[in-house]
């Protein structure tokens, strides 16, 4: 049995239609009309211990809804979820003891108190043995570089500092799995980098299972080895990052740079000039052509000063999937 097993999972939201006036809202206490919204449809996947899975998809795809069902916050409409042998929504509290959840859009810190106070609260809330608490507090304070601000009132902290603190708090009780719902939302490039690096280390050093949703594909490339792509509640792809790139492989790009006058472009089989700028060319290599041969041909023909291979970025692949639809 896998650590996380999700089978034919569905979630339909019932959205109450707005009632008008005093009488309307009295009536609506007894009878209401609903509109249905299928947020997650027949999703199945398995996750083994220690995996880091990127769970991605466009806005409204059903990512947060899935995370909430995994963490026991919401009850599935149909289908089954098992996390470590526990059905999260049935044994919500038991499940909560073993998971860490961070909703990037909101904070679980006390606005007027320092982070260290919230740490102590969580020690009690999760009934963490003293030595485990001390060890984790020190470990995560160091990992997230929180020494400088841990005793400052939360209201004085930057978004990035708060996010670090929120993630650290979710980890104090040594959860077996960490769910991160858009942990890098709103952060600048540097903060994102530090955060990704920390999350990657938690996965590798502690062997913690991680499920991460994000709209920034760099997060995925830095942290995850596996990707699940969903759209409109349905699963489109599930596999390793490299398989994703292969399957949705598009043409390779090669960049030539010239520090002298540009040569003249001659048409070649399998190669085409995608972009010609002042001192460089971006050349598209048809996917059938071997990149190695293309490089040799280009070197021989044009003798550029520099030559670069451009890896296809998943950002672009994902974009092309949804643009192509």
């Amino acid at each position, binding site marked *: 049995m896998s650590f996380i097993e999700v089978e034919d999972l569905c979630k339909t939201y019932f959205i109450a239609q707005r009632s008008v006036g005093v009488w309307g*809202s009295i009536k609506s206490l007894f009878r209401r009309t609903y509109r249905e919204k299928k947020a997650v449809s027949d999703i199945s996947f398995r996750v083994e211990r220690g995996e880091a899975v990127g769970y991605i998809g466009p806005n409204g795809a059903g990512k947060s809804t899935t995370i909430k069902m995994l963490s026991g916050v919401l009850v599935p409409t149909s289908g089954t979820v098992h996390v470590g042998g526990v059905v999260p929504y049935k044994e919500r509290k038991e499940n909560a003891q073993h998971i860490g959840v961070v909703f990037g859009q909101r904070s679980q810190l006390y606005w007027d108190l320092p982070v260290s106070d919230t740490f102590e609260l969580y020690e009690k809330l999760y009934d963490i043995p003293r030595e485990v608490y001390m060890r984790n507090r020190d470990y995560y304070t160091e990992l997230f570089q929180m020494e400088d601000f841990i005793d400052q009132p939360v209201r004085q902290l930057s978004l990035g500092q708060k996010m670090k603190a929120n993630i650290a708090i979710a980890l104090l009780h040594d959860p077996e799995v960490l769910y991160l719902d858009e942990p890098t939302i709103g952060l600048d490039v540097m903060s994102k980098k530090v955060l990704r690096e920390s999350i990657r280390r938690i996965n590798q050093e502690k062997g913690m299972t991680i499920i991460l949703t994000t709209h920034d594909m760099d997060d995925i490339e830095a942290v995850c080895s596996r990707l699940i792509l969903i759209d409109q509640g349905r699963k489109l792809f599930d596999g390793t990052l490299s398989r994703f790139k292969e399957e949705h492989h598009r043409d390779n790009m090669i960049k030539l740079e010239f520090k002298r006058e540009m040569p003249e472009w001659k048409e070649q089989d399998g190669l085409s000039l995608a972009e010609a700028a002042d001192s460089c060319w971006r050349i598209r290599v048809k996917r059938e052509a071997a990149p190695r041969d293309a490089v040799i041909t280009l070197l021989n023909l044009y003798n550029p000063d520099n030559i670069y291979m451009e890896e296809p970025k998943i950002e672009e692949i994902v974009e092309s999937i949804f643009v192509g639809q």
Partner: protein
Amino acid sequence: MRGGITMKKILELYRVFLRLNVQKAMVYRGTYIAGVVGQWLGYGVTFASLYIMLSRFEVLAGWNRYEVLVLYGLSVLSYALSATVFFVPTQDLAMKVRTGELDQILSKPVHPFLYEIMQGFCPNYLSHISLAVAVLVFAFAKLHYKPDMVSMLYLALMLTGGLLIQSAVFIAGSSVGFFTVQDNPVMDMVYTLKGFVNYPITIFPRALQFFLTFMLPFAFINFYPAAMLLQKEIPAGYPAVLPYLPPVVGIFVFVLSIRLWNWGLSHYQGTGS
């Protein structure tokens, strides 16, 4: 396996939350003190105007003005004691449903209601409590009423009943937050009806007396206990046992309100984003 929440753990957790809440209040010490004083003044004026208004009538359905003050004092005291624990947790529920904070609370290893109670302790009602006690002492003194041990015990029991009824109103009212984020006029109506028991219910029409006793039993908060203590008439034809029932009624409606809350929770489906 660590699960299984014990009473000891709950109390310890409550203590930590309590400390945090008091610390939080102390961050804005000035605001807190100003708030308490402001409440004192506000409620003081209400008491005073009630007192002055009552002095126009010698008696109200057999109750003199000090006796009516006892009614009001009991109602405010039970309200404030209950609000210290339940006001914030119940007031914020609709907001927490809307902002998705409840999602977060549901990912913690405690029952969300318990979590809310622990988080929501509100030290601000000290003003109401002290004022209500002062008014009760004043009224009893004016009435030359010397409570003995038995009547003190009776009063404490009745106050507990009243507190439970007040709490049930908070809890039941907040369950509505699971279903609608709109302000609900039904709750406004309930609060207006609760206001009636600041006066002896015997001055109202029979239908209202019935309603406040058997439908929304607010008269058990203060009227029946005060009628017992001050030896007043209860509505004609009503069982003489009623003045002993506030704790029973309290437990009954309290349990009912918790059930309602849990039922609401089972319909919770989160917020988007």
